[in-house]
Structure formats: C-alpha cells, structure tokens
C-alpha cells in the first residue's frame, strides 16, 4: 500500500516534469527524460535475460545436459556464440565479424516476411479489391486503386489522360492522409486525457 502511494507520487512528479517542457526546455524535463530512457533500457535488459537468455539458453542447456541429450545441449553453443559476436559491433576493428549473426537475422526476417507479405497481405487485399461492380462503394474502390497506382507510375510523364488519372489519385491519397491524421490527433489527445486522468484520479482524488 505504501509502495503504491510512493509509486503514484513518483509517477505524478515525473508526469509534471515532462509537461513542464510545454512551457520551455528545463533541467527537470531533461532529468525525467533521462530517467525514462535509463529505466526502459534496464527493464529491457532484465526481460531479455529472464524471458530469453536464461530459459531458452542457460536453462535448456542445463536440462539437456542432465538428461544426457548432448547434441541438443551443445548445439546451443552456436546461437550463444552468434549472440556474443553480435556484441562486437561496439569494437570498430571487429565490426565485420558482427555481420555474420546479422546475416542470419536478416535472412530469417526476410524469408518469413516475404511469405507473410504475399500470403497474408498482398493476395487477400487483391482478392478483396476485385469486387463485383454492383454498387457505388465498390466502384469507388476500383477508381481509388487504379488512380492511386497511376499516380505512382513514373515511366511516363503525367500528361493528358494519365495526368488526369494521377490527379484524381492525389485526391484519394489526401483523403487517406486526412483520415490517418485525424486518428493520430485523436490518439495524441487520448494520451493527454490518460495523463490527466492519472493525475486527477490516482494522484489527486478529484475524479471518483
């Protein structure tokens, strides 16, 4: 209970310190910013150890060793070594070695991502776009897709019919940007509300 109260006071103080930047930059804001970055980094390190390195490497190694699964135990040295090599990025002369584990990461990421993009994004979206032209909404989708793609066609100068289509495409792009920006404004205001809710609900009991 006393821990909650202390935690709430610390959080409220840091929130006000961050808000103080709205007036102008000041040492209190910078201190809060550095505390946030430091704690986030520390937290991430603890999580990497507790949820990744220890259970998936150290613990698994020990378990396999005690069960006499020597191959499954010693094969773990390979990813452990790759992980250590990755840290060599901080030594300029040995940066080139760190490209080996990076190539594994990029290769796996690209392989997984490529299939996912085609199977989970491109094909379903194309399939959904090819709708029967039986109502206005479907017609607007066709016009939007064709004109937007035309806008991004750069192999020919945008003149005449091509120019007209690309200008219509700009309208669709602007509508999409507008919708996205509107949602972004809503999101940012929500964060402000969330902080004030914390200050007036959890810290100062003005909202009940």
């Amino acid at each position, binding site marked *: 209970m006393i821990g909650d109260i202390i935690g709430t006071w610390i959080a409220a103080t840091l929130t006000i310190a961050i808000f103080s930047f*709205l*007036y102008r930059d000041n040492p209190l804001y910078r201190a809060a910013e550095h505390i946030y970055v430091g704690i*986030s980094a520390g*937290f*991430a390190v603890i*999580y*990497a150890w507790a*949820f*990744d390195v220890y*259970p*998936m490497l150290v613990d698994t190694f020990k378990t396999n060793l005690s069960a006499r699964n020597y191959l499954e135990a010693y094969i773990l040295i390979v990813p452990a070594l790759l992980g250590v090599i990755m840290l060599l990025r901080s030594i300029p002369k040995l940066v080139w070695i760190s490209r080996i584990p990076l190539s594994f990461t990029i290769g*796996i*990421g690209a392989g*997984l*991502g490529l*299939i*996912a*993009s085609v*199977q*989970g*994004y491109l094909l*379903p*979206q194309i*399939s*959904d776009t090819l709708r029967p032209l039986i109502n206005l909404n479907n017609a607007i989708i066709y016009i939007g897709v064709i004109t937007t793609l035309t806008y991004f066609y750069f192999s020919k100068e945008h003149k005449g019919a091509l120019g007209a289509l690309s200008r219509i495409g700009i309208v669709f792009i602007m509508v*999409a940007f507008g*919708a*996205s920006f509107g*949602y*972004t*404004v*809503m*999101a940012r*205001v*929500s*964060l*402000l*509300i*969330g*902080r*004030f*809710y914390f200050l*007036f*609900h959890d810290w100062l009991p*003005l*909202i009940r």
Partner: protein
Amino acid sequence: MNLWERITTIDRRIIYLLLTIVVITPLIIKPKILVRVSQPVRDAFNAVDQLPAYSVVMISIDFDPSSAPEVQPMLLAILRHAFKKDLKVILTGQLALGLPIGEIALNQVAPEYSKVYGKDYVNIGYRPGYSALMVGIGREIRDFFKTDYRGTPLDSFEFMRSVHNYQDIALLVSLAHGAVADAWIQFAGARFKQKIIVGCTGVNAPGMFQYYSAHQIEGIIGGLQGASEYEALVQKPGSATLGMPAQSTAHGLLILLLIIGNIGFLISRKRGKR
C-alpha cells in the same frame, strides 16, 4: 498588427493552456454522452461473445506504457467480457515493457469474477523475435513457452494441457500500438486461419480497416473511442467512457483553432497582396 494577424502569431503556450482547460473540465464535471457502437467494435464484441464457455482466448499485449491510456481500457473490458463468459485466458506479449501492464489488468479484473490463476488464466510471458514465434506457435506453443512467466511448467495447468497450437485457441486478441498486429494477421491469420480481433491505438486504426474489410480479422477496437464502445457493450464504463467528453471538447477546440487560423492566414495574405 490587427486581430487576424495576432491570431496567426499566437503563442503556442496559450493553445496548450486552452487544450488543458478543455480536457480537464469534462474530466471533473463528467457530462454524460451517448456512446454509439460502431460495427467493427460490435463485431469484435460478437467474436468474443459467441465463443462457447471454456474456450481458450489468447490475449497478446503488443503495446507499452506510451499507449496504455488508449489500449489499457480495451484490455480491461475484454478481460471482463472473457471472464464473464467463463473463457480461459492466455496472456502473452510481444513487447517487454508491455507485459507488466497486462499483469496489472489481470490482477485487477480476475478477483472481480473470482477467477484463479492457473485454473482460469495464465500469463506465459514474453519471448523476443515475434515473427518466428508466431509461426512456431502454429506447430507447438511449448517450443517457445515451456513455462509460464513465473517458471511453472505449462502442463501443470489443467486447461493448458490441451493447448498446443492455434487449433486449440478459439480467438486471438492483439492489443497493439505498432506493426505486431499486422504480423499476427499475416502469420497466424493467413497461414493458420486463426480468428483474430485487433484493439489498437488511433494511429494504427486506419491501417487495420483494410484487414477488416477483407475479412482477415473479425473486428477492430480503434483508439479511445473504440474502447469506450466496448465498455458500453460490456456495460462497465471505465476510463475510456470518462475520457470521451474530454476527447470531444478537445477535438472541438482543435477544429475551431484550425478554422480561425486559416481565416486569419487568408485575410493576412489578402491584405499583404494589396
């Protein structure tokens, strides 16, 4: 300098002060506003509501404290809905900083419905490298999570003994503020036909509608507005419902400033030409 020219050069701190006033006032006086539930949120609600009792729902905490004011109310509302329906909940997360927020929500909601850790819900924790994890769960969840986040073996929980891969998970809920929701849809949804609902921040919501339109996800809960709609459907108003009047007044102020600013700009430009 005339009035319109002054408006275009107004000190930004005055705008901050006005915004503070229009946000704080509704939070304190708490005016009641009618919440109209949109179809994407209703579909998300129905996806949970139509599950038979004791079905397994996996909730992935894919946001961190920077997005908590928007997404945390969704998590609380979905947990209340799931526990009310006697669904079994598996909590996981793809962001290290997000998982404690999920734990806080579980500790808050589970006692309201007398739910017991291990019997009705488990928290299996976090593993880095979500792309490989999402594909791997399609084969066997134990390849990545042999234990829960406290180190207890998964098989020591009765309901987890029958959970091996996506076939045993009736619904996946991704509460996200970034690209993780897209990854769930593209890996778990497209490859393993996993039913998914997405709760996301307002910034991410426009990007999710294409998946909803293509029936790749069951429903969307977008931003604080979506959270308030879900709270209305579970009949348990929370911080999202309380925040919506402030959201409306803030939007009203921003629209007003936008109009006044543009009128001022146009008049100043016209006078400058003369």
